[in-house]
């Protein structure tokens, strides 16, 4: 390499000399000086930059595990002074009920995923839950997803938690409180999951805009369909961005259609009909200097509105037509005041519709009572992977006033989890 260069340079010099033979000496000397500098530069280049080549190190080590596995263990102790099993005016699903008193294992979750190839990724989340003394495995998610499709399109197929509001698609262990807020417990049985296809597009706008929607079998609360392929459908639009480096926000509007022609059943209440559920959600975070590791304030709120048409059969008393409009909302604030500590407050409220005479004195008759809940929590995170949380709920979801205390741990291990917004 060195030798070749020198040969080339001598050749150039020779040619240069021949060409400038007639020019005066000073010009010739100048040219030679220039060439010498050039040689020095070339030599420097050769000795000082070894050509970088890819080494058998780095990248994100997630991909070193094929598939990657992460496990989340969750356990709690629940105390109730006067437990309300029902939420006045509503039929609620099994998971929307408050957890058993005393010690209980929450959802122990196993997540396995990988890039299948350059175009698909797959993810499987199984939760082991204990219900009435039986341990059951629930398939929370089992989906394949496209990667890198043009125009910002993503297609997801399989078992998933469709996008609805802010919380539905999120795993419960990433929540800021031990329990889901009332509107999610009532309208979505904590979280609606189903089998189907969902597509979304991230638009090339300056602030974040995503639109999407999907079709589902309708196999899970709030749907209960015979599986004709149109049991449920969702549509959503999300916007978000930053205001300076210190503020970030995300807003969403979503819609869920759920058909129950087979009959949605829980606690001796059977419903046949259709739900149209609408949601507005907002999340905002503020971190002084933009550094959320030390301090962060987060505000999150959602309003859900349900337009339900159909008939209810309560304790086999026969079907009664009950077209109703109900709603619920919550607003929560959390404040991380030190790297390891966070406190939060949440208020949630529901409003049921008035019932017809035939449904008087049934669980659907709220008798003007507005279910409400105040929650206070404090949590300690030893690291990104472990959390211990103490939460107090003042629960007025039914006629009784209930003081609840929850102490819970959440530990995640295995592949590094995502910091979703």
């Amino acid at each position, binding site marked *: 390499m060195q030798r070749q260069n020198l040969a080339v340079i001598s050749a150039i010099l020779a040619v240069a000399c021949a060409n400038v033979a007639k020019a005066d000496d000073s010009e010739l000397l100048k040219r030679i000086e220039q060439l010498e500098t050039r040689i020095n*530069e070339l030599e*420097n*280049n050769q000795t*000082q*930059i070894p*050509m*970088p*080549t*890819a*080494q058998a*190190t*780095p*990248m*994100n*080590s997630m*991909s*070193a595990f094929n598939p990657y596995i992460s496990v989340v263990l969750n356990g709690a102790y629940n105390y109730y002074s006067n437990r309300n099993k029902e939420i006045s005016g509503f039929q609620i699903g099994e998971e929307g009920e408050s957890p058993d008193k005393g010690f209980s294992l929450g959802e122990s979750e196993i997540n396995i995923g990988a890039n299948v190839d*350059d175009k698909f*990724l797959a993810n499987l989340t199984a939760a082991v839950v204990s219900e009435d003394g039986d341990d059951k495995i629930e398939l929370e998610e089992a989906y394949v*997803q496209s*990667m*890198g499709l*043009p125009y*910002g399109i*993503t297609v997801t197929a399989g078992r998933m938690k469709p996008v609805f509001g802010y919380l539905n698609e999120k795993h419960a262990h990433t929540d800021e409180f031990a329990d889901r807020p009332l509107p999610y417990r009532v309208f979505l049985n904590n979280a609606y999951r189903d089998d189907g296809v969902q597509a979304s597009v*991230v*638009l*090339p706008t*300056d*602030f*974040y*805009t*995503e639109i999407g929607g999907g079709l589902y079998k309708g196999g899970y609360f709030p749907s209960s369909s015979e599986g004709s392929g149109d049991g449920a459908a969702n549509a959503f639009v*999300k*916007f*978000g*961005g*930053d205001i300076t*480096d210190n503020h*970030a926000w*995300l807003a969403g509007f979503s819609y869920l259609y759920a058909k129950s022609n087979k009959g949605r059943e829980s606690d001796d209440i059977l419903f046949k009909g259709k739900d149209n559920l609408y949601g507005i959600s907002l999340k905002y*975070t503020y971190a002084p*200097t*933009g*550094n*959320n*590791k*030390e301090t962060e304030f987060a505000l999150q709120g959602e309003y859900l509105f349900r337009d339900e048409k159909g008939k209810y059969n309560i304790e086999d008393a026969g079907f009664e037509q009950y077209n109703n409009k109900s709603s619920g909302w919550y607003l929560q604030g959390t404040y991380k005041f030190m*790297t*390891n500590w966070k406190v939060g407050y949440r208020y949630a409220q529901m409003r049921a519709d008035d019932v017809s005479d035939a449904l008087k004195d049934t669980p659907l008759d709220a008798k003007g009572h507005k279910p409400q809940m105040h929650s206070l929590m404090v949590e300690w995170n030893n*690291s*990104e*992977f472990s959390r211990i949380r103490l939460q107090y709920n003042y629960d007025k979801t039914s006629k009784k006033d209930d003081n609840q205390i929850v102490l819970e741990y959440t530990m995640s*291990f295995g592949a*590094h*989890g*995502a*910091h*979703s*917004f």
Partner: protein
Amino acid sequence: MKKFIMFLMIAMLVTPNSFALNVFTCEPEWKSLTEEITKNTADVYSATNASQDVHYIQAKPSLMAKIRKADMVVCTGADLEIGWLPLILRKAGSAKVQEGGANLIYASQYVTTIEKPTRIDRADGDVHPNGNPHLHLNPYNILKVGKIIVDKLADIDSENANFYAQNYDNFAAKMRAKIKDWENQARELNGVNIITNHKNMSYLFDWLNIKTIGTLEPKPGIPATSKHLGELKTLTEKNKIAFIAYAPFESSKPAKWLSQESGIKAVVLPYTIGGNKQVNDLFDLFAVSIDLMLGAKGK
């Protein structure tokens, strides 16, 4: 006319800045390096700034909007951005910038990482299996990564390949000359002992042969405890320590406490571009860091 206006609106929505190359970088050092090569011809964005701890960033909506338009992505890798980069890439990145895609550059792939743990266990704190990812604080690494960026830019935008190559050559020549100056200037720091908050400036210390004999964090990612600080105080009594260093996004409390107790100066080093008002490019980053360390060390 109506059709024309519609077309204009759609065109504006779909192709803002379509003439400029969009480069998404994860950290300010890669933004600065890319800009040395593209000058003002590309739209270069940094996902984070000097006051943020990069590891803890969330997959914010603004990042998804930015990566959606990226023609090229330059990040550190080695797990530094593992909490958020895979998520935003999946959600909004084009095929070319996906994991394994042609236009995704992980700097850590092209340099030799240091402090690779021999034991991968989170009982040791938030360990990075692929070694220390804060590799930009060694100027030789900057030259290597710059070479990769310039080659990639030539691939993507071959029309301007010569322009990029010329800019890189100028930058590299200046950097090489400066490295010699800095190395001479920092001779006084050769072999001194220091304490740092977290091992995020190891490449700087490694380059200048400065020995880190303690960290304010008891374990990586675990904040300082009073017990551990007490132990460090004993360490300062037994060893000659030149200074205590920490980064702009880290709490100054533990460093200041130890400084007060031991009489050793605590110094906040810029860490990256913007980490200090005087640091506007990569040359400033090394020059200011060395000045600050020499000042803190004293005679």
